[in-house]
Structures are given as C-alpha cells and as structure tokens.
C-alpha cells in the first residue's frame, strides 16, 4: 500500500497535486481543534477586517476570524462527507452484493428500488426532509441523510461487477470446494469490489459536499455549525459581495474548488492506476 502511494506520488503529477492539497486540507481540519475561539461565538474579534498578518483571512461581519471559521468549515464538511460516503457505501455494497450474488427475484426487487432512487428528484425531496429535521440536523445526521440518498448509482456498478465475477471460474471452484457464501464474497470478491468502492467514494464525497452547500444556501441546515455551506450562507446574507468583504465569501468558494480538484484528481489517477475501464463502466451503467 505504502509502495503504491509513493510510486503514485512520484510518477503522477495529478496525484501529487491532489494528495498535497488533501493533506493540507486535512491538516487544516485537524488544526481547527486548536482554534482560540468557540466557532459559535460572535464578537470575538473586530468586525469586517481585511486579511492581515494578525487575521490571515480577515474577519467577518459577525466578529469571527475567517481563518479559524474556515478550518472548522473544512473539518465539518469533510466529516459530513465522509459519513455520507461511508453510510452510502455500506448500503451500496450490501445491495450490490446481494442483488448480484443472489440474482433472481431478490435482484429484480433490489434493482427496481435502486432505479427508483436513481430517478427520484433528489433536491425537492431533500429540501422537504431537511426542512423537517433541520433543527436536529447535526453534521452526523446530515451525513447519514445524504448517505441514504447517495447509494443507488453505485449499487448498480457493484452489482454488475459481482455478476461478472459470479460467472468466472474461481467462483465455481470456490463453491465446489465448499466455501461459504460469506467467505467467497469477502475472500474472493472483495479484492475486485474494493477498487470500485474507492473509485465511487470520491465522486460521492463531492456530491455530498455540493449538496450540503446547496441546502445551507437555502438555510436548511443548522446554521451555527460552521461548514462550507453555512459560511457561504452567512456571507451571502450579510451582503459580503456587495459590501466588498471578498475575503469572507471567497474563502469557502476557493475551498470548495480545491476540495473538488483534489478529490477529482485523486480519483482520476487512482482509477487509472486500478483499471482504466472502471470509469467508463460506471458511466455506462446509467442505461440500466
């Protein structure tokens, strides 16, 4: 694993870039814990100051240090995205494996449900749901909520991979040698499915972060928890653009771009490293 990492770092410039940006972002998120201010308190620093040596990214109209707010935002947004990714991966893997391995009626039922989730208009439904739970939507529960809606696509990808694996020789050998289903799946299939999980995870993470921003802009999440979305929400509603407090609005936007770039480039090169076909396969799965 470590060898793979070093060789990717050395030979793939995109990977190197994505890796460095990601490491910086993660370090920033970890650093948030050392913030001198409670991120939910206002009036802790003078208001509306442009970036300076004292306040690296300036201060906002609520009297908060944008730098530390941004670190908290990275931390919370990434945590939220990771929770979304993990929970959606669990559902996707379970559904994909079950449907692909068992086939028959289970497959048909599961895939119909899956396709329904692919087709349902997500934004209106998410808005409906978040406006119910908004008060209780912590970073964790928002992550889980997004996870519940973000698995369908990838379950299909995993299913078709399992389908093709099932037809391969070693499955028959394994079955004939009396291996249990669980062992077959975990010992024999996982090595093939794991790359798929990593590849789809990156995209899912991007989706989750973007969705959080949209919901926050509409004011549908817990607004005092700093995330990239709530930072944008406060900046926009305090007219940071019109009043020229550019450091406040630009910080979360630039962070969004960097997170995206890092994840995108990482996924691109990891995919290429694993199997150049995976991406196409994923996209072709749409036609279902």
């Amino acid at each position: 694993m470590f060898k793979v990492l070093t060789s990717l770092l050395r030979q793939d410039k995109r990977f190197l870039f994505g890796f460095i940006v990601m490491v910086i972002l993660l370090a920033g998120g970890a650093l948030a814990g050392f913030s001198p201010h409670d991120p939910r308190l206002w009036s802790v620093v003078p208001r509306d100051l442009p970036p300076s040596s004292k306040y690296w990214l300036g201060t906002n109209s609520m009297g908060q240090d944008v730098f530390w707010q941004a670190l908290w935002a990275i931390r919370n947004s990434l945590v939220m995205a990771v929770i979304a990714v993990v929970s959606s991966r669990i559902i996707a893997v379970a559904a994909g494996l079950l449907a692909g391995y068992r086939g028959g009626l289970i497959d048909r039922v599961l895939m119909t449900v899956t396709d329904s989730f692919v087709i349902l208009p997500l934004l209106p439904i998410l808005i409906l749901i978040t406006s119910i739970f908004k008060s209780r939507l912590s970073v964790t529960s928002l992550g889980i909520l997004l996870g519940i809606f973000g698995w369908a696509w990838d379950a299909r990808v995993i299913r078709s991979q399992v389908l093709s694996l099932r037809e391969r020789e070693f499955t028959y050998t394994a079955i004939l040698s009396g291996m249990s289903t669980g062992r077959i799946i975990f010992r024999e299939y996982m090595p093939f499915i794991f790359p798929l999980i990593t590849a789809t995870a990156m995209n899912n993470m991007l989706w989750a972060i973007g969705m959080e921003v949209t919901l926050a802009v509409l004011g549908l999440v817990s607004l005092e928890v700093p995330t990239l979305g709530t930072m944008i929400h406060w900046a926009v509603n305090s007219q940071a653009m019109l009043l020229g407090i550019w450091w406040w609005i630009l910080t979360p936007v630039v962070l969004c771009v960097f997170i995206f770039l890092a994840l995108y480039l990482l996924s691109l090169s990891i995919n290429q490293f694993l199997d150049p076909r995976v991406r196409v396969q994923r996209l072709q799965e749409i036609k279902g």
Partner: protein
Amino acid sequence: MKLTGRYAGLLLLVLSILVAASSLALAQIGPDIPREETLIVDILTGRNPNPRRFNAWAPGTTLDAGIQQLMLDTLWCVEYAQGEILNVVAAAPPMYNDDYTQMTVKLREGLYWSDGVAFTADDLVFTVETLKANPGMNYQAEFDMFVKEVYKTDDYTVVFELKEPNSRFHTYFLNRWGACRIMPKHIWENVDNPMAFDFYPPVSLGQYVLKDVDPGGYWFLWEKREDWERTAVGQLYGEPKPRYVLFHFYGPPERKVIAQSRHELDMCDLTMESLQASWENPGFRTYRKEYPWIVNIDPCITGITFNALVEPFDNKDVRWALALAMDIVDVMALSFDGAGVMGALLVPPTPVYLDWYYEPMEEWLREFTLDIEVDGAPFKPYDPGAAKRLADYAAGRGYDVPDDPAKQREIFGYGWWKYAPEVAAQLLERNGFSRDKDGGWLLPDGTPWKITITSHPNPAHPAYKNSFAIAQQWRRFGIEVEVVTTEQYNTLATYGQFEVSSVWPAYEPWGGHPDMYRTLRMWDSDLHRPVGEVTYGHQGRWSHPDLDVIIDKLEKIGFDDPELIPLAIEGLKITTAEMPSIATFGYPGFVGWDETYWTNYPGAENPYQQPYQHWPNFKFMLPFLEPAGNK
C-alpha cells in the same frame, strides 16, 4: 475542426444579437410606460403565484401588491405616524349605542367604483351578508358570531345590530394591515361561488385601477383613475402624483440594491447590510438621512418569548435572569449595528407610544425593584443610561451620533434593563441552578442547561438576526444555546412546541390609537391552551389573574374612554414585573428610497405619513410625492 469553428461562430452571433438587443432597452418597464410618471415599489410578501386572483375576501389572496394599498379602501384606517385614526370610506367614526349592541356607520358620499357605478350602503350590507353566509371566507366566523342583522337606513348609513355587546366591533373595518373590505355588489351579486371567484379584472374603489399583471406573479401595474376625485383619498388629499404605480418583487435584498442602482425601484425594504451597500447608488436615501437611518415609527416590538408552560421558563426568576444576562447594546450591535430604538416595555417605542406609555411610566420603571437584594438594597433593574451606552457604541463604530442626551433618547430609546449577569446568577442560584467547573449552567436537577430558540427562517427578517444575537448573550453567560431557524416557527409557537421563540413578544397594538386591548387581551387566561394544542392567545401561554381583571375592565369601556391609558399602564406594570417575554427594540424599518424620479418621501425630517409601501396607508402618501423632474 471546421465544424467546431462553425458552432463557435453561431454561438458568438447569438450572443452578440442578445447583447445588442439588451443595450437597446435597459429599463425593466416597457416603452409605453413613461418611467418619470411611474412609481416603482417593492412587494413585501414576494412573488404571488396566482397573480390573477383579486378575491380579497377569501383566505390566501395576496393583498400587499396593490389590493390593500390602491384598490380596496376600508371604512377607517390607522395612521401611526401621527397617532390618529382616519375616516376613509366612512364619513365619521363609528357610533355605538350605550351597551355596545348597535353600531351605526356613516359613509362618504360621492364615491364611485372604477367601472362607474356609485358606491352606496348597499355594497357594505351586501358584503357583510355575503361573508356571513359563506363558511371559509374571511370574517365569516366573526360576523356569524356578532352580527344579528345589518341594514341600511339610507344610501349612506348602515346599522349593525349585534348579538352581544362588543365595544370594538368596528375594528373589523379598521385597517391596520388588513381589515374587512367592501365588495362591489353589482359584480358579486351574480357570483355563484364567492370562494372560488377570482374577481379578475378587479373593480377598484381606490384611486388606481389595475392595468396589467405579470403572469408569473412578480409585478402588478396600476394606473391612476381618470375620476380619481370620486374616491375617498381624492376627497381627503386630492390628486395622486404618479400616473402609474408598479408593485414589483425583485427578490432578496441584494437584488433590490441592484434594482435601485439602475433606478428601477423607488421604494423598498432593505436589511442593514444591503442598506450599507446602497450608499453608492445615486439618489439613494433612507428614512433618516443620518445614522441610524431606520424607521422609528413602526408599531411593532421585537424580542423573545418564553413558553410559560415549559420548565424552567415557567419561573419568573428564570425569565428575569435571562433578561439581565443580556447586554442590550451588544444585542443591537450584533443584530443591526446599533440601529434601533430600544424598548423595555412590551409596547413599540414609536414617538406616539413613547408619549402615551414610556413617558408616563419612566418614573415607575426607575424605581421598580426585583425582590432580590444586591449590596443590601433591593435591586433596581432599569438602566436609564442604556441609550447612552448604545450611542457610545455607535460613536465608537465611527457613526455620527448627537451628544445631546435628549436627542440620544429620541434616536435610541429611553432605556433598558441593566446588563447584570451576577444578579442573573443570583436569581438562578436561589432557584437551585448551579454552575459546573467550566462555568456552564446546570439545571436544578444537575443536568446541563440547553436552550433552543426557534426563529424566523428569513435572514431579512429582524427576528432572525435578533435571535442569533440573543443566543450569543446567553452562550456567553454559560448556557448552551441553539438557534433553529425554520419555516414552521410560527406553527411551533402556536402549538406551544418551543422553549424560547422569536415570535412577536407581544401582540401589536393599534399603532395609531392608545388602546392596548389588542395587546393585553392575548394574555387572557381563558384563551390559553396546553402545549400541543393550538392557542388563540399569545403563544407564550402566560397569564396572570390581575391582568385578567384589567382585560375585563378594558372590554367594558369604549374606544375613546379616558380610562384606556391608565388601565393599560396597570396592565403593563404586570407584564413588566412578570417578564413573560423580553422586549428588545422597535421593528427597525430599513426603507431605501430612490430620489431620482420622485421626492418628498415621508422621511424623518417630514414624517407627514407612515413611510412604507406595503401598508394600506401608502395611498395617502401618493398625493404628496413630487416628481424630481428627471426623464
């Protein structure tokens, strides 16, 4: 690559055509509507998804895009800038008999509907009868409950016989931000289902008539009637100046700033931030030309309401402790950069109410004590110097603030409660609250105290900023606070499913009349319902036997009785001592006016009228506007 080139060329062509087309006509309004004869104003309640519905008597119809301002005049109207009640369609104030079971209304003569039919007592009688007979329509329940009979004695006199005494029956026809409006009988008598009838195109009783609507519901264009003098406002104030009035919803505040920068919006409501962003707009002005810019005559008070049925807010000491844990200067600084008029009483601190209540009660407030001792003397919570502290804050922010204490009182209010966290702590501790080692407050049962404030979801609404600012105070005091902004905050409040809410801390009084019945009645104990049921009184679900007595007395005296004010003062003393809600400051109206096309808006230097375009009173302003002479 040939193909790509062709596509790019095509795209470029389309683009340039569009840009060229755009630069030809910049303005939002079409070529047939001369800009200099048009007054463009904001719509407060936003897009009207059903723009061709003018049925003002069915629930749900949007009224503030012209219906209540220009189209349907009411019998009476509150004028809160001057503190009076105007007779609009009525020729005189209502006349009650001695036991308030009969009300007689004299109507103005010489009024005509915009389709040329004369307005008479028949219209009013028909309206009341129609509404009474159609469940679901506005005022059906009220008329059913009170009106025994309604008839005319001549073409301009209507008599209401009431089922039970009601000294304030006329207020159903008194326009504050809505009232029962009158239907043109000649149109509605042919309508089968008055609930479903759209009343489009509408017939107007006001000085303007609908010319055009946006099928998308973003704007409504009204044109001055040729027979404008045959209307109530025509008789009262003469000819309105703008030939067209355009109600136009632009969206969130930044869009209004943009529209004003292009001189496509003359009057609108802004927020503190968007107001600050508007200074570069040529011709821009605010209500006050200098800091704090805001409208100080809005008859609403902001603040925070406790749910008196939820522990520990059922405890007066807790409510007071939370009030004393707030620094009003910091609250106002955080929410509106200090722009506002603070008010300690649950009465809006507008000039007329300052005269009616704050002035007479000031002495009492200064001497008022809580039953707790500080340094061996009863604690006096009132801080007459709060206005000065706010003025100092504003000066520190670089704003131009007058030094004269009297001027400061006029701008920032009379005073507020002291910022006394140590007294607050004392109040809590004597009720069994304690602090953990980090200074965080624990409930008497030893668990951490966490308060949830439910608030308005719209960042442009004062309640929104206010609740975050108040949360900051309590958080600093050591209480864990969470602010939940939700569309449902009003419903939650009505069902009592909240701890602390930013709904209006007290119901608004009339605005232009000293009667406090409208406000105090809501704390009547017989209106209160347990948590989980809809309440029809104040959402805080607080009541007090002494206040019940005062409400009863108020109910029995008329609208012009000299006892009104003394009784109300007694009631306000109770609400002050009990602190069911914390009042913070008067509703700050951030109006933004563009003087490029129109001048003589009713600003602070000449408040001849209330300053809003969304209030029904807007129509009284139109005859006084002056064209600026720009083309």
